[in-house]
């Protein structure tokens, strides 16, 4: 085949004498020269792939840059909260600090965001609370995306019995309200940590992703390009990973990033109900729930942990949006 290509090359030959390999206008050499003197620019360009292109595109998207910067900042806060404040989040001073209003002149000081009902620095608590909230949010989201994605992919791809069994399991889990189920489940644990809460939420939450994934896979599976891959002899893993997954992942990314915020709030709700994280643990959820008691007298106590939660959710939703768009070549 390559031989045919050279003979029928539609590109015009350079005029005789234009190259330094021209021996008396020999035709054969001229053809040789054509490739020697004018190397196709595309031939030296790197071969590209979807993920490489997506990354190249992401780096130029302001939304991605902003959300990524926010997430990096949040992660640094979660890992090293002590870098940002000297205040101790557990130190109470009811005499001087009971529900003291924010002091805006004290930038990054202990009283910057005010003090809560126990006389503790809200600024320090927001910083130290990031670890528990982000851990729960990220762990649960990762777990449900992997578990739900896998279940949805298997159910959608194989159909038949696999689909029937998996879909019924999904239906059963779907019938259990997330909070009620988590209440029952967490009651079984005597000590409740970030990980038990994350486990309970992931255990009950994966069905949502599984449904979305199954639906997307069912649509994509019908596409001619999947049949084409099959006709070429592609194996199941190649069809799933190269053809179906990239085309079915977009709705999953959207649902997962929105759900991430939901899981952080679910953790907050569970804490509020007294079944999630307990008071020595610092989390935005614990603080939001305890702030509700004083919302009329001191709304700032609720405002700061709630704002931190919203900002985190926003950052992840923006990231999800940017990644989804970057993975669709049509939107680039």
């Amino acid at each position, binding site marked *: 085949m390559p031989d045919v290509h050279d003979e029928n090359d539609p590109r015009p030959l350079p005029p005789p004498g234009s190259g330094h390999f021209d021996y008396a206008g020999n035709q054969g050499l001229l053809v040789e020269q054509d490739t020697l003197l004018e190397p*196709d620019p595309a031939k030296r360009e790197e071969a590209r792939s979807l993920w490489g*292109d997506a990354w190249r595109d992401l780096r130029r998207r302001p939304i991605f840059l902003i959300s990524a910067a926010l997430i990096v900042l949040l992660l640094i806060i979660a890992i090293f909260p002590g870098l940002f404040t000297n205040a101790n989040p557990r130190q109470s001073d009811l005499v001087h600090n009971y529900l003291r209003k924010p002091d805006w002149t004290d930038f990054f000081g202990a009283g910057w965001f005010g003090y809560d009902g126990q006389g503790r620095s809200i600024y320090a608590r927001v910083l130290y609370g990031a670890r528990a909230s982000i851990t729960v949010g990220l762990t649960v989201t990762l777990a449900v995306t992997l578990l739900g994605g896998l279940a949805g992919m298997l159910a959608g791809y194989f159909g038949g019995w696999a689909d029937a069994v998996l879909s019924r399991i999904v239906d059963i889990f779907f019938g259990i309200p997330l909070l009620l189920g988590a209440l029952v489940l967490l009651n079984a644990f005597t000590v409740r940590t970030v990980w038990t809460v994350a486990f309970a939420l992931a255990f009950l939450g994966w069905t949502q992703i599984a449904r979305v994934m199954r639906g997307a896979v069912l649509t994509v599976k019908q596409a001619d*390009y999947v049949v084409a*891959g099959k006709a*070429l*002899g592609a194996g199941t893993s190649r069809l799933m990973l*190269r053809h179906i997954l990239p085309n079915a992942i977009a709705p999953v990314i959207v649902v997962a990033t929105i759900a991430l915020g939901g899981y952080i709030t679910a953790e907050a709700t569970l804490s509020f109900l007294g079944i999630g994280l307990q008071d020595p643990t610092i989390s935005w959820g614990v603080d939001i729930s305890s702030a509700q008691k004083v919302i009329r007298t001191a709304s700032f106590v609720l405002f700061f942990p709630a704002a931190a939660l919203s900002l985190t959710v926003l950052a992840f939703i923006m990231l999800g949006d940017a990644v989804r768009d970057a993975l669709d070549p*049509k939107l680039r």
Partner: protein
Amino acid sequence: MTPNGASAIGTTVPEEVAFQQEVPKGEPILEVRDLVKYFPLTKGILFRKQVGAVKAVDGVSFDLMQGETLGIVGESGCGKSTLAKVLMNLEAATAGSVRYKGEEISRLVFQDPYTSLNPRMTVGDIIGEPYEIHPEVAPKGERRKAVQDLLDVVGLNPEYINRYPHQFSGGQRQRIGIARGLALKPEIIICDEPVSALDVSVQAQVINLLEQLQSEFNLSYMFIAHDLSIVRHISDRVGVMYLGKIVEIGTDLEIYDHATHPYTQALLSAVPVPDPAARADRDRIVLVGDVPSPANPPSGCRFRTRCWKAQPKCAEEVPALMARDWLRDLAVHDSACHFAAEREVDLEK
């Protein structure tokens, strides 16, 4: 479902045959005998019970010769695409045999170039995928060059290798599909309505490309379409399908000018005539009724419910696909009608 694996329809050829390349021109390269594909109709959710079958392809036999183009025409739902899928081993045949001579490599070119290319793969990845699946064909370092050569062969700029399918027009996308089909150097290409989704002007370009590739690489085509004019243009022989069976098969001249099966005659009379003056004169055969359900086809001749020649014999006896001894000249070709005869009216007057 590997194309090289053993299968029920006997596409696996013995080793010594597999290495005997270069089937001489005019010899059959693909032999299809009594091919049957039924899709079961089931009832019940938990305990499935087969209540019938859609007889999509029901006893199809033909030979595809080396270097020839065999057109398969028929209306929607007559089993053309199912036939292609069974030949490509994408569906397992219910019965019958498909035998490839020489190297068993056939490739499919799809109907809709908008859905047959993965929108999230670059053109280089799409055309190069056959090499990734069959790495023995092209070593890793040469794949990029091979892909660019293929792009060049189908008339696309080799620099397009990093573009995505949506950046191309329908005709260019179909060229990409053809390049993918050519990657493994097949001997047979099965084209399932390759131009029906394209503009008429682009259709001609793609057809010309297919013809040019055929002479360059000595390909054999099975060309499935419902557009009779295009099939006539590209095909050496033409088979007409109705309800899962081939009702008439012969050279393009035999089929188009000397059709003996009433269904073929009706089909040909429906071809649009570009000349308005001639349009008034032509003698259209308008078939009454709908195509019967392939789940419950008529007894005997399947066309009898819509045929103006139908006799009691047609309901009792399935007409064989053969040349009838009362026919003369070009009318002597395989036709599955008890009363095969050329039409009296000249279709092209």
